[in-house]
């Protein structure tokens, strides 16, 4: 049952007249294990009830937008991984596809499928980390070890593909840096096939646990109006019952060629946000399975065999990993501007680039989902109990590097 300000009996009668019953200001953070980074929350409390909450951001500001003005686009690209380090493939996709739109570079179909597989795997790792830390915030420590066990397997796949576990730097303008290693798709299929069992295991531990239910059902109800008014996107918005997913509404990459559902919640409480993310992981698995079956050329080993045998069809455009090979050292995109919005694990991730014909961008603007999602915390927390703060803050999945950039 939800405990809100109205349910609490008046306690004024017990207080002596000279006791100071004014509001108390409590500082949470910047260094706090539950703020997922460095966030300061100035909380005004009336007893246990949160009257006002004011997030102070900027502790993680690394001037990612300004940095772009002193670096060529290719030089700037590795630093994009650090915009949002839990799902860097999405940042790279937004950046690279914007440049591709400005320069009108063609992207082969095989590359689009590789990008789609990596992005969906990345969505799963991001949601898994959210799952672990969210329950850690609620006081349950073992789910984190479960989540990290599976995340490790996917990070190992990324390491085989890109050489790095979190800072991938893998996409290139009009392609990817290198084709998949031989046998990589089989490894992905193996991980994807055993994943539903693991998800069932998590659900057995968490989903119906009475303590978890008490702390999430009916807590932090975000109405659809409140979500829209604050610019909330992603799973947090869908948990409030609005079916808005850019992969469905504005298909980019090759999302229009795969079949998947967009899970939505009913009430918009913490439990719904948890459920929506869990179902999203299952949908991602569905997308990856279809993409592995549909990828043009199949596994690299197969493709290499065809090429070695002199099969001309193995060299056609759709099977390449570069649309047009460009000299990355001196690459100058034409003058122009463009933008891309992708559906990242946290919501809309936008990249807007103005180029002036030089190797550098004139201006790059990032629109991070976490920034808008964080702004809903204050209206959401008003009048709720202080112990619910971390449950609610954890459930909207804010990551601070993306807030400050």
């Amino acid at each position, binding site marked *: 049952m939800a405990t809100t300000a109205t349910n609490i009996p008046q306690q004024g009668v017990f207080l002596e007249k000279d006791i100071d019953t004014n509001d108390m200001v409590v500082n949470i953070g910047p260094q706090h294990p539950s703020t997922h980074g460095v966030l300061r929350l100035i909380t005004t409390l009336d007893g246990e009830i949160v009257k006002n909450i004011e997030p102070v951001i900027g502790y993680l500001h690394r001037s990612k937008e300004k940095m772009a003005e002193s*670096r*060529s686009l*290719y*030089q*700037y*690209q*590795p*630093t994009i*991984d650090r915009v949002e380090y839990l799902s860097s493939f999405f940042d790279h996709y937004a950046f690279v596809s914007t440049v591709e739109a400005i320069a009108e570079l063609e992207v082969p179909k095989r590359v689009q499928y590789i990008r789609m597989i990596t992005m969906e795997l990345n969505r799963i790792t991001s949601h898994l980390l959210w799952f672990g830390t969210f329950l850690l915030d609620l006081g349950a420590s*073992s789910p984190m070890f479960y989540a990290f*066990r599976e995340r*490790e397997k996917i990070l190992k796949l990324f*390491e*085989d*593909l*890109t*050489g*790095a576990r979190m*800072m991938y*730097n893998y996409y290139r303008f009009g392609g990817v*840096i*290198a084709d998949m*290693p031989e046998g990589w798709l089989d490894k992905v299929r193996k991980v994807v096939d055993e994943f539903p069992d693991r998800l069932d*295991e998590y659900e*057995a*531990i*968490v989903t*119906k*646990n*009475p303590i978890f239910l008490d702390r999430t059902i009916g807590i932090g109800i975000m109405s659809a109006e409140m979500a829209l008014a604050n610019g909330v996107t992603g799973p947090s918005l869908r948990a409030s019952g609005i079916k808005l997913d850019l992969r469905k509404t504005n298909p980019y990459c090759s999302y229009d060629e795969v079949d998947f559902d967009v899970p939505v919640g009913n009430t918009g409480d913490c439990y719904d946000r948890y459920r929506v993310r869990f179902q999203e992981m299952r949908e991602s698995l569905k997308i990856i399975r279809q993409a592995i079956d549909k990828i043009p050329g199949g596994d690299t080993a197969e493709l290499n065999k065809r090429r070695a045998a002199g099969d001309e069809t193995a060299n056609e455009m759709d099977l390449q990993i570069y649309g047009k090979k460009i000299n*990355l*050292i001196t690459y100058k995109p034409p003058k122009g501007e463009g933008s891309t919005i992708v559906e990242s694990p946290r919501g809309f991730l936008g990249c807007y680039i103005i180029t002036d014909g030089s190797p550098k961008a004139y201006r790059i603007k990032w629109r991070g989902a976490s920034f808008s999602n964080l702004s809903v915390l204050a209206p959401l927390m008003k009048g709720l109990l202080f112990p619910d703060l971390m449950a609610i803050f954890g459930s909207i999945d804010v990551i601070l590097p993306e807030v400050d950039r």
Partner: protein
Amino acid sequence: MSVLDNKVVSGVVEVGRGLATVAKHLFRPPVTLEYPEVMPDLSDRFHGRLSLLTKSGGEDLCIGCQACARVCPCGDLIQIEMHRDEQKVPVIDRFTIDLGRCIFCGNCTEVCPVDCIKMQDDFELAEYSREALVLDKYALSLSGEESDEYRVRHGLEKHVE
């Protein structure tokens, strides 16, 4: 009262189910690695310590084109000084990489026209001082045999002189 009973019963059942799931791990092999004793199995593409490959005879492969220095996102991390001898052959006087500031993005390895600067699968790079992390040409260069072995393992062209 019956609502409370239901809640208690379902709570006990669900907590029991969760504990049973956790208890399954008693019979599963551990997934963690005992790191210093067991080294992780790294991929060929691993972004580790930077190194300079040499020709099979051990001579410098680098031609001093500055491509790696130009694409480095960290500014002046890679510093190259070179001159050309009488036959116009490039001679590298100085080649330093400050690994303390390197972000291991791999841009330099991608653009190198002679496949000279490459990443090894070596990740234990801790040193006692920052100066010790600035590697010069001799610390970075691999021997001719090591370079040949690297080239065979990664399917690169051989540079035999």
